[in-house]
């Protein structure tokens, strides 16, 4: 059975699984919670030390369920799921889906990690601090920069950290009021435009020229003595690496502007080019992306900040430092710091996984990762461009790094079916694909990123699915019309996620908003 045939015979699981609260039966239990340890006093005595208003009178409303029923519940949910462990996840472009080594889960799950507490004295946390410090040391080589913080809990949070450092820097220079603008590019990650606004900045976006590079004339027109910083992603979401990047940083530096490099996706750059060589002052790296830690469905993750030593005074506190007398320690003595970006010190299991990944691969291994990712992408690109109806954005600029934003514009013109239709169809093959985030300027877009983890056969199978869907659009429009037919949901109404009156993220709010909603009227 070849890959395509196998994928065609896929059928999604549907368990009609209730919410765990609906499975709750009074008196059932899965674990016996240990009581206070022997040296401590009784439960009553401990509660007696708390102020009265902090002691709850009723029991928390938690589901009551035994272990077997609980395991079954979560197994069902996992079967109704799709992820990198269950499908060829190269369709989730810009996300750098790759293999997260399972052995890292063992490391992160060991009691040495699990039982750590962020408020432990540093001299009892030397191991964890050493990993944080040494991860920074590794990034000296990877980025060419000098000081590091693993505090931000994700990529966009990394952007927020950079914007915070920018603000602290200009405050120190006495130009905080005047320097209130930030410049980014249209195909930088949308967070580079959105997040500095949260920090009070006005953001100006530079559109690309016909080759797909940011328009340098527009950049010159936007740059002024009000510019605080530039936030550039490179390579951009189109997969195009801006080879003129140093012209931009040079122009910015001439106006005293700070240069921030979004290296969230550095998967095509490791060992090939670095932040320092592009003359940027700061950058951030997603340890949960390029560096193999799982994405965790929107976190917890790590957007590691890296900066030149001149910017050390403005970094988030505390920084992890080392001296022979004290060992590893947390340095809070940064009076000009932008402050804390997150409570405590960062998402340590993610840092541990990235550290382990880098140490396992070594310098040669990292370079190999990027070379294979680029090779995979260019192989995949050749296959996709041979599919009827598919094309790529900025065809005048044929080379791409680690991903490509493609277009079904021709398919749409020929058949009336576009990227959303392909997306519906692909669910029938046990896989998925993602179209694009802002800006919605490439017609009928889709973004494919086959990182180094995928085999040639994986890429062949995935492209065969795309080819089959294209064939269906041209030859069996009715089948496309009614797709997906092997899946369980036909059209997700996204509006629920945007409407505060409709979404609920807790059982309590669900009950409030939907009590009686599903009962027969």
């Amino acid at each position: 059975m070849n890959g395509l045939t196998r994928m065609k015979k896929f059928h999604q699981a549907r368990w009609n699984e209730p919410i765990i609260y609906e499975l709750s039966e009074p008196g059932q239990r899965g674990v016996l919670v240990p009581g206070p340890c022997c040296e401590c006093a009784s439960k009553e005595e401990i509660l007696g030390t708390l102020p009265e208003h902090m002691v709850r009178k009723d029991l928390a409303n938690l589901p009551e369920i035994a272990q077997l029923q609980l395991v079954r519940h979560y197994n069902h949910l996992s079967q109704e799921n799709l992820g990198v462990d269950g499908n060829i996840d190269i369709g989730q472009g810009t996300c750098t889906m790759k293999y997260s080594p399972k052995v890292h889960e063992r490391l992160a799950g060991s009691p040495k990690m699990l039982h750590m507490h962020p408020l432990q004295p540093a001299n009892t946390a030397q191991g964890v601090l050493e990993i944080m410090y040494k991860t920074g040391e590794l990034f000296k080589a990877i980025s060419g920069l000098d000081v590091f913080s693993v505090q931000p809990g994700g990529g966009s949070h990394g952007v927020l950290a950079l914007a915070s450092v920018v603000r602290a820097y200009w405050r120190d220079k006495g130009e905080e009021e005047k320097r209130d603008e930030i410049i980014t590019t249209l195909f930088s990650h949308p967070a580079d435009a959105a997040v500095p606004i949260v920090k009070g900045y006005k953001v100006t976006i530079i559109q690309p020229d016909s080759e797909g590079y940011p328009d340098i004339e527009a950049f010159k027109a936007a740059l002024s003595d009000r510019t605080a910083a530039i936030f550039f992603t490179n390579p951009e979401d189109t997969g195009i690496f801006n080879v003129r990047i140093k012209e931009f940083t040079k122009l910015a530096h001439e106006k005293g502007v700070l240069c921030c490099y979004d290296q969230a996706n550095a998967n095509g750059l490791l060992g090939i080019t670095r932040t320092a060589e592009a003359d940027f002052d700061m950058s951030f790296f997603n340890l949960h992306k390029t560096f193999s830690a799982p994405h965790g469905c929107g976190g917890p993750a790590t957007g590691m900040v890296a900066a030149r030593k001149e910017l050390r005074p403005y970094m988030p506190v505390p920084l992890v430092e080392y001296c022979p007398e004290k060992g590893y320690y947390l340095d809070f003595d940064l009076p000009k710091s932008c402050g804390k970006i997150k409570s405590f010190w960062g998402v340590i299991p993610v840092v541990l996984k990235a550290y382990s990944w880098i140490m396992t691969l070594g310098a040669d291994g990292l370079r190999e990762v990027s070379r294979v990712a680029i090779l995979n992408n260019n192989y995949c690109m050749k296959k996709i461009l041979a599919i009827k109806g598919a094309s790529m954005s900025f065809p005048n600029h044929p080379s791409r790094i680690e991903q490509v934003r493609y277009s079904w514009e021709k398919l749409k013109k020929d058949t009336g079916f576009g990227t959303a239709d392909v997306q519906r169809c692909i669910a029938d093959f046990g896989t998925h694909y993602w179209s694009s985030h802002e800006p919605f300027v490439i017609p009928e877009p889709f973004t494919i990123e086959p990182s180094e983890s995928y085999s040639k056969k994986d890429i062949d199978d995935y492209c065969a699915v795309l080819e089959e869907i294209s064939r269906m659009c041209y030859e069996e429009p009715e089948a496309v019309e009614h797709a997906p037919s092997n899946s369980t949901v036909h059209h997700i109404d996204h509006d629920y996620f945007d409407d505060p009156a409709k979404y609920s993220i807790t059982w309590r709010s669900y009950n409030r908003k939907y009590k009686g909603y599903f009962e027969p009227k």
Partner: protein
Amino acid sequence: MKIGFLINPVAGMGGKVALKGTDGEDILRRAIELGAVPAANSRAEIALALFREAASYHYFYAPAGEMGGKLLSENGLKPEIVFDPAEKTTADDTKRAVSLMLEAGVEAIVFAGGDGTARDVCSVAGEKIPVIGIPAGVKIHSAVYAKRPKDAGMLVKNLLQGKVKRYVLAEVMDLDEDAFRNNAVRAELYGYMKVPDDREFMQDRKSGSSGSDTNETLDIAAFTVNGMIEDEIYLIGSGSTTNAIFQTLGKEGTLLGVDAVVNRELAGKDLMESEIKKLLLDHPKEKRHLVITVIGGQGHIFGRGNQQLSPDVIRMIPRENILIIANSSKMSALFGKTLIADTGDPELDEELKGYFPVITGFGKKIMAKVG
């Protein structure tokens, strides 16, 4: 679902005989004399072919004969006939059809025609119910029309299948046909109608959505109002994006005209060129501001729907005080194109070339080139 279906049978007849439109009876007669054949019905049929199958469980309301009834019947959809027009149809027939459809309680109107037809539909339906335009006219400047009849057909199908979740306001524009025939392009903005937002189907959840166009427009308005400086004058208009500023100020602005604001109060309403000049003279040059939006699918900042802003007026305002505001979806639609200043004065058009920041959100601008 109850759907109104309407064809302007004479739309598009002038084009092939180079008459630049068929507004008015004399021109129509000349078009027929020159050998023009009605094309609107065949354009509508292309669209109909795409949604016929999805249409079986829906109710259609149409005028009899060439204005839609005949085409629907021939295709097996039994429409409710709203009235039977005379053989020579006019703009009044379009308006009458729309008002009878509204009375019958239709939830959307599908119409085939050109800019003139869109104007007529808009004059009655306004923003009350969604519309889908099948392009069949000589002049298609109105954004209410789909790109091609086929695209319109797909939109109708999506609508009938309940797949349309969001609507956006689209411009109804028309050229002055007399001027157009004399090779002068003078487009006016006549209003807005609600059309399906077909981007709905390609938007993904990964990055979340920035919310609807309406919310974005209000963000833009709030940002613009926030930046207003005391005792300086702001000329605002025309269009729905600029009009949202008045919603933010709690004032009644003119949708299709230019108003003036000083200290967040109205200093002039629906101003003519001469009135604008007079008002501007009360303020030193550096304290004069102009807030405009991008009008129409071609990306005009001047020369479409804001002719009050004459070359003289534009010259009275410093370049850096010209504030362009537009939704990001509008700027996305213009991706790869330059903005157009068509002031009527080639020298000024030349001066206006170069980069302008366009405000697309709260604190968010995009550098756009006027070419």
